[in-house]
């Protein structure tokens, strides 16, 4: 009569929240990417993000409805000490650079390191990152696809997308991958402790012994 309660009904109603953090140098298009994905809006006018901001979006991943909470951080150095507090509890970290600005690519290592230090995920080497090379619509190109992909390979095969927040190119696909990887990260962590499958066993026991009304579910 007890463990049936923690069974499937609860699980199906479970709301999944994914926390995604967007990092990268100032003006690479972090806010724009988020706005393009969530609101399908784009403004050519750059505006520095004060502190941090966030937007949420509901989406369906493999028949599961998940709420993605996208945290947009300020790229400017001034706000970085405020930003790091937000890293904790992230399910996926999105690194963004500007394909026309080599310096923003060079900073990726330090953004990644900073994230791993501050967020201190359980398995740093397996924590999901996704790299976005933004401003694909602009010329001249400074960082080739090959170079970006090489970097990704060196970091345990981070998925790479070339995006344009302006015309929406690859934005949807990128965020779908982000959501999937974030979800996988959550699930793998759950499996770790679900080594006590007793819950299920108990539910079965329950079913076999109580066809009556002792159990309300």
């Amino acid at each position, binding site marked *: 009569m007890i463990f049936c309660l923690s069974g499937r009904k609860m699980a199906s109603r479970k709301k999944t929240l994914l926390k995604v953090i967007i990092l990268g140098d100032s003006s690479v298009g972090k806010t724009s990417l988020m706005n393009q994905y969530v609101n399908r809006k784009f403004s050519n006018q750059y505006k520095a993000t*004060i502190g941090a901001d966030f937007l949420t979006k509901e989406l369906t991943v493999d028949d599961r409805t998940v709420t993605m909470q996208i945290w947009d951080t300020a790229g400017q150095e001034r706000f*970085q000490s*405020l930003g790091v*507090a937000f890293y904790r509890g992230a399910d996926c970290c999105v690194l963004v650079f500007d394909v026309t600005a080599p310096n923003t690519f060079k900073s990726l290592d330090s953004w990644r390191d900073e994230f791993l230090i501050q967020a201190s995920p359980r398995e740093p080497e397996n924590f999901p990152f996704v790299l976005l090379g933004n401003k694909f619509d602009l010329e001249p190109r400074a960082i080739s696809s090959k170079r970006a992909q090489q970097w990704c390979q060196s970091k345990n095969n981070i998925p790479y997308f070339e995006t344009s927040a302006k015309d929406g190119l690859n934005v949807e696909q990128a965020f779908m991958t982000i959501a999937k990887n974030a979800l996988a990260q959550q699930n793998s*962590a759950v499996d770790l402790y679900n080594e006590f499958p007793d819950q299920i066993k108990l539910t079965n026991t329950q079913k076999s012994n109580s066809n009556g009304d002792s159990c309300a*579910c």
Partner: protein
Amino acid sequence: MASLDDDSHSSDWILELENAILEECSAADIYCICKGKALPETLRSEIWQICLDVRDKGNQLDQFNEVYDLPNQNVLREDCTSFVAKLGNDEEDRLSVTSDVESILTFYCKSRNIPYVRENGWMELLAPILTLKVPRSTTYNLFEAIRDTYIPQSCHSNGNAFHILRLLLLYHDPELCSFLDTKRIIPEQYCLSWFQSLFAATCNLEVVMNMWDNYFQQSDPFFIFFLSLIMVVNARDQIISMKDESREKIITCLTNMPCGLEADDVSDFCTLAQYYALKTPVSFRNDLVQSIYSDSASVSQALCLPVSVHELVENTTQETSNVDAVRFFLVDCRPIEHYNAGHSPNAFHLDCNLMLQEPSAFATAVQGLLSAQRQALAHKSNAGGEHLCFLGSGRNEEDQFTHMVVASFLQKHTQYVSLLSGGYIALHNYFADNLDVLHDHQPRSCIVCAPKYAMKSSQEPSKSVQSNDLFGKISAAMKSKSAEVKGKLIDYIVNPNGVGSVQERHVSSSDKIGKRYRNVAPVFSIDDDHDNMANVEQIDSDEKQELVQIQAYLKNPEIVEHFPCQEVKLNGFMYKSHLIVTKAELIVLREIPDMKGSAELIVKRPLSAIVKITARKRHPELITFKYGVPDGENLKISDMDRFLIPNADKATKVVSDQILMQLKAKE
């Protein structure tokens, strides 16, 4: 802009001034007579010396050995020559002036043990003083005093002086500040020369003389910040209209802004700066300016202007007749359970967690806040002010969300936004001797009191000699650890409150103890699903607990297994405990920090009462046991225990196995 001086009375005040000079007088006396007006040329050098307090300085240059051997003496000499050439002196004077300037600056370098650096503003600063045509020693004294008193010490590249100016701009004109941030224009790029030379480098001589007359009379070393602020704010329309121009062009435009200033404008300019100074919290002077001397990062990384507890309290308790003075409207951004455990009577509660969980409810709450502020202002209530002062807990875990809330206001270009330094903890400490000032203060759940409170109650039953010190250390260590856990939990908080209940909460100054969890989901819903847990009360019994010897107790044959662990309370505190599984019960022993080997028997739970065992995915070692009965489709949870168990997998397995065995036995 014309000066509003009434000429007919001009001779009166000059006479009075002349008399004052003959007697002993101070800068304040001079200000009373002149009211910041430009000084007559004949009296200027005398009055500057009075205001800068250098009349008794004597001839410091006597100590100068006339050896010109600075590492870059030739650079200095070159600069002096070209500087003097621009002054337009007669040919015969030029050489002596040049040598005076070089002597003064060389000696200044030597006496201060600082190097001469090109374009450090010294020449520009000297120019107005030289026009007074006073002896070399007086020139030196004035130069030294102006530099020491009025030039911000950290006005070098990335110096805190510029970060402070930015914070002031953010306070008074957030939109303009955000515009400049966006353009990546930082104050030092346009106002370095203003700061270094007190505007002497950019304004014409007449303007500088008038401005300095006013400046020295006021003898306010922070006035430069407000003068610079006015310069920028005054040009806001022009700057914002340049949104499509290059960064360099905007910087040049800003840098040259003071050039347009005319002598007639000076008094208006200074009056305006005084007005802005009045409308700025003074903590900026007391607290921030200290950081001018150190180069701490706190200023450069500050989200907005900080306000000290002292200023906040003084401000809300004192009446003022000045309508322009700063009045605060305190916004408490802490989570609801913190607020309910004690808050300032004047605080408006805006739960920072709401922002993440219920953005629309948050927007409603903000509207409520603004209308409450309007009402308070209309009623001239002490709690009402134009200046929004946000209050966090003072701990990073919660304050990251407070910062989010503050950032959201700044993003909306809300004027007069500040943050209370040190948050609630600082406020609490300020009232340490008189905690009655805080409303609804509950020592048991207050984040400052609770550790001490726990210490007191644990001392009572055992009556043994205990060292507070040791306990303090241990609880501090535990607290910091629990804080960490809490930080990770916090983003899973569920808040089922609808829009309607939000408003209700804000009039909660009168909330009573029993209502603490009314309509509020348990804050630390430990797992991701939402049980019906509204009935869970934090049960912390006051009863004296049974005292046991751990080792002896563990010998009980009924015991199946025991696990050392930490019990984690709802308020985040942790207690070193033992979780004991017997054939029919779950027993919790809590160690007594100062009595080695002893423990309190906290609770015995029948295994059959356990309805759920959950772990957190990010904290597999954090295990929650929930007790209760099924209630329709849901669980009716009546109580819960939570532990950090190093060997969690095994513990949950043992408990599950025992429950299974019990079930089987029943069959």
